[in-house]
């Protein structure tokens, strides 16, 4: 019997100990990294933000709505890192892949259920939803609802004919600016230089965004967020293991000129 299979069997036999919450394992949720954002997936999305029932996601709503959105949250690393840093803020991960979304859902539920939990907020302020953020962001969020938007290690869509599928494009920036309030911050990071330059070019050209370099981010108190952006995700860790570069680009949402 191979080592992997033996380990798996041992893991399974080690269950059912009272008081021990079994965390979901990524290998049970693996799915292709690429999903076609232009397909008509059988996605559920609210007709409008007013129709969205956030109580399903956050047990203690207290009249709040999500303020941070992690677009393409993958396995939820950023959510888990940010949740305790901002216990009073509701944070939403958005992911288009079904199995990956399910993993994050199960992970958050398991974290919340842990006995003797000390994380501020108890992970009750983070959640995930299966959604196509490129198409339906305005369905979920009202104008200027968000104060932070994250695009961590987005799919590079290398081929020119796929560039339209890139998560940052001129036409999409208008929608991101719509859901993000003036003064809000967009965080982008990638290990693909070409994609980084593409994103920077588009953001730089877009009149409603202004680049924030690291000094500014640090001075305005976003240092711990930047660190989480760099290191908290599976993708980020993978890049480190492979000694890759990480290109960070953050932007402030400026006030509307009109």
């Amino acid at each position, binding site marked *: 019997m191979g080592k992997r299979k033996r380990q*798996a069997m041992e893991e*399974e036999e080690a*269950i*059912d100990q009272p008081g021990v*919450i*079994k*965390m*979901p*394992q990524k*290998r*049970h*949720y*693996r799915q292709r990294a690429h999903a076609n*954002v*232009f*397909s*008509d*997936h*059988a*996605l559920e999305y609210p*007709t*409008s*933000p007013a129709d969205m029932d956030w109580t399903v996601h956050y047990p203690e709503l207290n009249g709040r709505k999500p303020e941070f959105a992690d677009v393409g949250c993958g396995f939820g690393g950023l959510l888990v890192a940010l949740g305790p840093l901002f216990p009073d803020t509701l944070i939403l991960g958005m992911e288009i892949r*079904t*199995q990956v979304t*399910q993993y994050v859902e*199960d992970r958050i*539920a*398991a974290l919340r*259920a842990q006995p003797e939990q000390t994380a501020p907020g108890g992970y009750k302020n983070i959640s995930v939803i299966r959604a196509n953020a*490129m*198409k*339906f962001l*305005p*369905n979920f969020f009202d*104008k200027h609802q968000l104060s932070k938007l994250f695009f961590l290690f987005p799919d590079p869509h290398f081929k020119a004919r796929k560039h*339209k599928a890139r998560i940052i*494009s*001129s*036409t*999409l*920036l*208008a*929608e991101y*600016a*719509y859901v993000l309030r003036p003064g809000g911050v967009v965080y982008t990071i990638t290990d693909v230089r070409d994609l980084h330059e593409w994103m920077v070019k588009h953001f730089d050209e*877009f*009149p*409603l965004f202004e680049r924030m370099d690291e000094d500014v981010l640090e001075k305005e108190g976003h240092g711990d967020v930047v660190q989480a952006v760099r290191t908290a995700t599976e993708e980020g860790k993978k890049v480190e293991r492979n000694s890759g570069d990480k290109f960070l680009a953050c932007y402030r949402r400026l006030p*509307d*000129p*009109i």
Partner: protein
Amino acid sequence: MARLALSTLIARDDVLLAVAREHVLVYDKFTGSLLRTTKLESRIRACALDPSARNLVVVDDGKKLHVLAFDTLTVQSTRSIAKKSDIALVTPNGEQILLADKFGDAFAYPLHPPADTPTLPATEPVLGELIFGHVSTLTTFLLAPPAPADPKFIISADRDEHIRISHYPLGYVIHTFCLGSTKYVTALHIPPSAPELLLSGGGEDELRLWRWHEGKLLRTFPVGDVVRPRVTVRPPVLKTKPPAAKRQKTDEVEETEPEKVLAVSRIESIDNVVLFSLLGANALFYFQMDWSALDAAVDVRALEFDSPVVDFVLDGDTIWVSLDAQPPSAPLAAATWDAGSTALVMTTAPALSSVPEGDADTDLYLPLALLPKHPDDEGWDVLEAGEAMSDKQRGRRKVKEQLKALQQPASPASVS
């Protein structure tokens, strides 16, 4: 060979302009005689007249943007553009052409190309100024407030049920959305009698009324009962079936007719009468609307024709209607509002001479097949009856079960 259907009707002064595939036709609207015509190299996708009625903007399948002199139909300029556009309009000040391609982006071009633009044969496409874009397929857009006022906003709609209000010319500043439609939106109209309002229609059995600047839905108008019986064209069967259809493991042969698909193609209004048409329906639909009593019930009625309505245009008291009909039926009909009977009635339309012939147009009803969405995902964790659980599924299920157990009070039997 078949007589080509007339799409894009434009009425101006004494003439009626129509497009039939590659042909631009200008008819005398009283006698029906063909005054002038021109034939382009490829099918015309969009056509618009500028406010001065001197310039006709035409976009064809060859990705060419032509500007023709309306009185002679001679080509004054041709520009190559990057993508085929399906929607064209000229701004009320006559200075810009707005074109939108099916990928969802809208570009602005000066009406006349600047002097230094290379003339045909052009190798490099001219870059328009990107005004706004949707990720979804853009279906229609208009400028608000309506002409002749100076536009301050763009109202655009897409296949994913969105109606978006952006600023103009700063199209990158989105003002608000009108959200609530549950199917693709394909027609928009701002009634001149109430320019703060917006009527929308698409695949639903209702039209919607909005206060567009606030993004607020005011009411719906149920039209399905009147409209559905008159939709006579079924969606064409595509050569490449959408993925969901491919995956169906049915033993039955697919003999059943495709279901009817609704697609509102145009909405207009004359004072307090709202008129609208649907792709593949053999009628012009209408209802009277009291713009000061928006909640009042409306009586939706239909003026039927012998053939499907392709397009209609308002021309003073007359409504010109083009029909998808073969001889001996006429391709053009006319209607008018009869105040006495408070109904839309047919009037005489001139018999049009020399409507060109060609291969039957297969593209006319393609939107009926392309607009509806086909979800290609199935529930991924549902066990098919009799199938053994995979390791992955078992692993996921274990975590789920333990979490479920925690939420329920433990019963004596479950304690190990």
